[in-house]
């Protein structure tokens, strides 16, 4: 049983990793389009959770879509509700004996994983994880049926039987630590099917498991902000409402004998495991109509409790949020404008580098910028795949690609620099290097942004001098620090050298981006004017 449990959790983790890798820009865009109406959004949520069985993968995807401006919070809410209903179906599915299908799935997916092309690895990886998940379930079920025969276990179950409140807390605690109400409920179903637990205890265990999942989400959301916290709070609110209604109803049924949830699930199935699975599905489905009616007010409330962060607001696509224009030249100009916003966003990220002793804020900011960069890259790829492109268009695409690859590398370098500077600030707060380097790099980036905006020849010349081997001042700083006057310990010296190397890389990347902009030539804003005017009139782009 323990081996089955291990396999189950391994498969869940592996599935989550593969799904995150699968969530590329095209998939995101498809999902964003599919969720345009509430019923469709609910269906997307339900299908996704049935296919993936991973709430965290779904939340990851939704947060990404909302942050990138491809979906509103109001659009994401029905997806969460649909996922809740889907989770109930997953638990029901787990009660069925599908051993042959599972073994077949693992066999086919395993062979494809080993022998198919590399780009299929993510899909086959996700498929094999689903198979392993169910296999883990089956092994657990076999193990639990043997457990029933052992004396000590039977005595333990007997002593705790008949205490629904205890089962409620056990479900909550187990889910809190195991981080998955589906997984914990699946284990409990094995116990129920083996006769190791009664239905009343099982139902309260299910309620507890759902509350445990919410508590976990609340604890995690204390460190979150913006959209991530909004989605976490929404899930928490849903489960809280469900528990506040269903737990009192359970005791009403227990003490008065009125036919409520237990009577309802007993009427639908005679199998104890299926009954508990139905209770789980009911918990996750019955508040859905209420939450659907309150979509607007709950969205406003969530935005009030956890407003979008500055970086999230900046990371929303402004020029590329609507469908791409037909003319490739205009589409490329929009990409160009959005890219300038991306550089501004990276520049505001320097605020997180100032005086910071941890990299969490910087990472959040850079992740938000990365979402915008992906949206821009997708638009760029879309423009590149069009027919009838002129030579000028091709040149522009090539240059914009170079700019974007440089910005992608800047993101990695900034994250690395943030970690090194945070470490130096903790260990050697007396060193001025960390503060100086942030201000120095910010100054060069400001020149790059000016180049991106105006393509002024003087600015390009200045940027190229600042980022040339001769102009780059890091070497002088390096020599000054390493001449021993600052009495550095070997470990501190290592961090300092790493930080200096990353700085040099960043300065070089600023220069390469500037060179690419220099080749692009002056922005022909006049070409965009009629298009932007139309967008403004329709309210898609603000002035």
């Amino acid at each position, binding site marked *: 049983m323990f081996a089955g449990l291990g396999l189950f959790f391994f498969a869940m983790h592996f599935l989550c990793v593969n799904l995150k890798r699968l969530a590329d820009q095209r998939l995101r865009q498809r999902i964003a389009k599919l969720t345009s109406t509430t019923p469709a959004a609910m269906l997307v949520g339900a299908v996704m959770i049935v296919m993936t069985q991973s709430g965290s993968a779904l939340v990851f995807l939704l947060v990404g879509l909302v942050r990138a401006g491809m979906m509103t919070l109001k659009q994401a809410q029905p997806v969460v509700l649909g996922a809740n209903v889907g989770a109930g179906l997953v638990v029901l599915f787990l009660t069925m004996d599908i051993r042959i299908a599972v073994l077949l799935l693992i066999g086919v997916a395993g062979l494809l994983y080993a022998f198919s092309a590399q780009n299929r690895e993510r899909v086959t990886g996700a498929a094999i994880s689903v198979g392993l998940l169910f296999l883990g379930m089956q092994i657990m079920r076999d193990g639990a049926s043997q457990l029933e025969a052992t004396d000590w276990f039977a005595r333990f179950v007997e002593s705790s039987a008949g205490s629904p409140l205890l089962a409620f807390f056990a479900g909550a605690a187990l889910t809190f630590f195991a981080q998955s109400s589906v997984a914990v409920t699946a284990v409990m179903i094995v116990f129920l099917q083996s006769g190791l637990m009664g239905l009343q205890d099982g139902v309260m265990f299910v309620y507890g498991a759902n509350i445990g999942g919410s508590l976990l989400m609340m604890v995690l959301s204390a460190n979150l902000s913006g959209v991530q916290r909004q989605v976490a709070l929404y899930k928490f609110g849903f489960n809280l409402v469900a528990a506040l209604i269903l737990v009192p109803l359970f005791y009403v049924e227990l003490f008065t004998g009125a036919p409520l949830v237990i009577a309802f699930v007993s009427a639908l199935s005679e199998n104890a495991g299926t009954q508990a699975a139905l209770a789980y599905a009911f918990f996750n489905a019955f508040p859905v109509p209420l939450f659907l009616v309150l979509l607007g007010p709950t969205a406003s409330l969530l935005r009030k409790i956890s407003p979008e962060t500055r970086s999230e607001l900046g990371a929303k696509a402004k020029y590329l949020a609507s469908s791409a224009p037909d003319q490739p030249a205009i589409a490329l100009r929009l990409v160009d404008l959005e890219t300038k916003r991306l550089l501004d966003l990276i520049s505001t990220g320097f605020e997180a580098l100032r005086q910071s002793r941890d990299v969490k804020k910087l990472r959040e900011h850079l992740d938000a910028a990365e979402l915008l960069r992906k949206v821009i890259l997708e638009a760029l790829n879309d423009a590149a795949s069009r027919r009838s492109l002129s030579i000028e268009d091709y040149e522009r695409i090539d240059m914009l690609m170079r700019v974007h690859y440089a910005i992608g590398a800047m993101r990695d370098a900034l994250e690395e620099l943030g970690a090194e500077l945070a470490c130096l600030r903790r260990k050697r707060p007396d060193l001025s290097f960390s503060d*100086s380097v942030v*201000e120095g*790099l910010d100054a060069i980036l400001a020149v790059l942004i000016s180049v991106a905006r105006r393509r002024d020849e003087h600015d390009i010349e200045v940027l190229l001098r600042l980022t040339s081997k001769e102009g780059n001042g890091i070497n002088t700083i390096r020599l000054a620090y390493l001449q021993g006057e600052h009495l550095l310990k070997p470990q501190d010296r290592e961090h300092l050298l790493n930080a200096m190397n990353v700085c040099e890389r960043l300065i070089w990347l600023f220069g390469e981006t500037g060179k690419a902009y220099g080749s692009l030539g002056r922005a022909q804003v006049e070409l965009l004017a009629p298009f932007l005017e139309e967008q403004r009139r329709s309210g898609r782009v603000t002035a």
Partner: protein
Amino acid sequence: MNFEIYKENDICILRPTGRMDKETIPEFEELLFSLIDSTPVKLLIDMQRVTFLAGAALGVLLAVAKRLSGGADRLCLFGLSGRTREVFEVSGFVSILEIHSDEISARGEVR
């Protein structure tokens, strides 16, 4: 941030004191442009009493240098030390702007 201004014929010496950060930079920028807009000038900035220098301040200095370039007007800085000098070194602005070790050297250069 406080500023002391000395004028001597066409030479103007500006001595800022305190932090040059996002709160004080707009004031600094306004003052610089008012000084160079009024009359032809050789502007010398004494950086000795600047305790903190934000990257954005370098952008302002660059804009002023750009405006003054091409004619008889000049922008020179002197008195850079410690952290302020380090920001100039890291950014590479030491190779773009005219920097002197002290006031005598800066005055000698612009005369």
